[in-house]
């Protein structure tokens, strides 16, 4: 299968601490891949390197968008990366609390639209058309995610599970080909987790997205993912199908050291 993203020998340091060391990762078109590992393994650091929050110390991150071509995205700014087609959610939900649910999603559409200050002031035909499309598209996403009842609510007022789904909808609005989900199931009860699993599968099948996620919920990971990548102490220690990874002695050793399991 054609890869949409390739990470090669990624390194990241914080002061003297090696947060990432020699990390390789591939995500192919339409794949759902999980990155798991004990706390502090470097998973979110990896995400932040991919999303442009940090510039990696060494190594390469290549993306291969469906439209064609290859791009090395090391050190690009977050907004440029989003424009190129990588969207992300955050470990601690980062919505826009004092905007409505619909507007949160509309903001996601920013990088796919063009209207500037002059357009905003003139409200010419093209701009009005664009605005209409933004609203339309966003509402469509809202329905797809199942949050249309909240359309005019302030994002702050939503229940937790809905907020997590809203973040996903907002990321979808950017029109990505690769979605990075940072602990999407954190704090969810089993019912909500099941719904999340269904949603992620639909995103892959209906939208053709590739999805990379960090998760601690092992049940979800085993059930949902095509491939799992295990990290510990900033390095990749295992990779493969869920069944393989579960039986891998390295992985078991890495986790047995932990006190808590998902």
């Amino acid at each position, binding site marked *: 299968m054609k890869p949409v993203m390739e990470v090669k020998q990624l390194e990241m340091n*914080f002061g003297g601490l090696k947060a990432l060391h020699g990390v390789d990762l591939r995500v192919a078109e339409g794949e759902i891949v999980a990155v798991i590992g004990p706390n502090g393994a470097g998973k979110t650091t990896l995400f*932040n390197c991919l999303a442009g*929050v940090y510039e990696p110390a060494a190594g390469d991150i290549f993306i291969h968008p469906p439209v064609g071509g290859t791009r090395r995205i090391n050190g690009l700014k977050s907004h440029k990366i989003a424009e190129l087609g990588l969207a992300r959610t955050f470990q601690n939900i*980062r919505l826009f609390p004092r905007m409505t649910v619909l507007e949160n999603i509309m903001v996601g559409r920013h990088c796919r639209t063009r209207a500037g200050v002059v357009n905003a002031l003139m409200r010419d035909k093209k701009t009005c058309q664009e605005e209409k499309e933004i609203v339309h598209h966003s509402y469509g996403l809202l329905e797809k995610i199942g949050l249309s009842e909240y359309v005019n609510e302030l994002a702050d007022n939503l229940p937790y599970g809905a907020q997590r789904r809203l973040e996903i909808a907002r990321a979808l609005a950017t029109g990505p080909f690769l979605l990075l989900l940072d602990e999407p199931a954190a704090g969810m009860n089993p019912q909500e987790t099941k719904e999340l699993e269904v949603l992620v599968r639909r995103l892959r099948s209906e939208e053709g997205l590739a999805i990379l996620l960090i998760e601690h919920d092992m049940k979800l990971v085993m059930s949902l993912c095509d491939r799992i990548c295990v990290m510990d102490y900033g390095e990749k220690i295992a990779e493969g199908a869920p069944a393989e990874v579960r039986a891998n002695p390295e992985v078991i050793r890495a986790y047995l050291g932990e006190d808590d399991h998902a």
Partner: protein
Amino acid sequence: MEFFWGLFISGLTRGSIYALIALGYTMVYGIIQLINFAHGEIYMLGAFTALIVATVLTMYGLTGPAVLIMASLIAVLYAGAYGFTVEKIAYKPLRQAPRLSPLISAVGMSIFLQNYVLLAQTSDFLPFPNLIPEMSWMKPLTGLMAPTEIIIILTTALIMILLTVFVKLTRMGRAMRAAAQDGNMAMLVGVNVNRVISHTFVIGSVLAAVGGVLIASHVGRINFFMGFLAGIKAFTAAVLGGIGSIPGAVLGGLILGWTESFAAGYIASDYEDVFAFVLLILILILKPAGIFGREEIKKP
């Protein structure tokens, strides 16, 4: 050569005052990440209180160093009280609010205090008596610097030493350092963070008041607006040295004092005040962490 020396001493003097005020800014920022805009006004209040007390005392017949000591003590006491009260009213209720709120509240408090003094007293410049007597041991130095300058420099040095001892060796000092590094953790190990914050404000205010009394004696007049400019410049000094760092505040103060003094002397004296701002903008662009500051790595 004499010109240079004059500028050097003058820079050292004003730098010491900036350092005293900057300490208050840096300590407060280190703990609650807030620029206490009202801090400059505490400095001003210290000077005013000292003037009022000194005048009343001299009116009732007291003279000599006793006046200086009484006036300074009472001014310092009041400054601490004001600092304590300002924190409780304007900042404590907003600790969990978005960052913009306490900032606006601080600006409001600053405006309030300026106008409070303006209305309570006067908008004129009030002459401030030189409370610092010329003492015998200063004789050999009188050619080089004025008695007030000597006292300012010595007092500031003394205070630095005392403060460093306090922060490094006492229980409260340790608590302050802990709270500055990680407030939540400090709370979890039993540090009463509210108390620490109050202490920080009080100490900072006391220092600013000392600076206020000293500079008022040196310059000879005070005005309700004196805290505004001094406050901004002292904040510049704190940022220059690395916000949150005590030695940084001192170093920053001295560097700012000398920069202003020499620039005003050799370049253009009219634009004296501008140098501080230009310096501020330059540091924030080039090295926002300051001299002793640590580069912050954001983890979203």
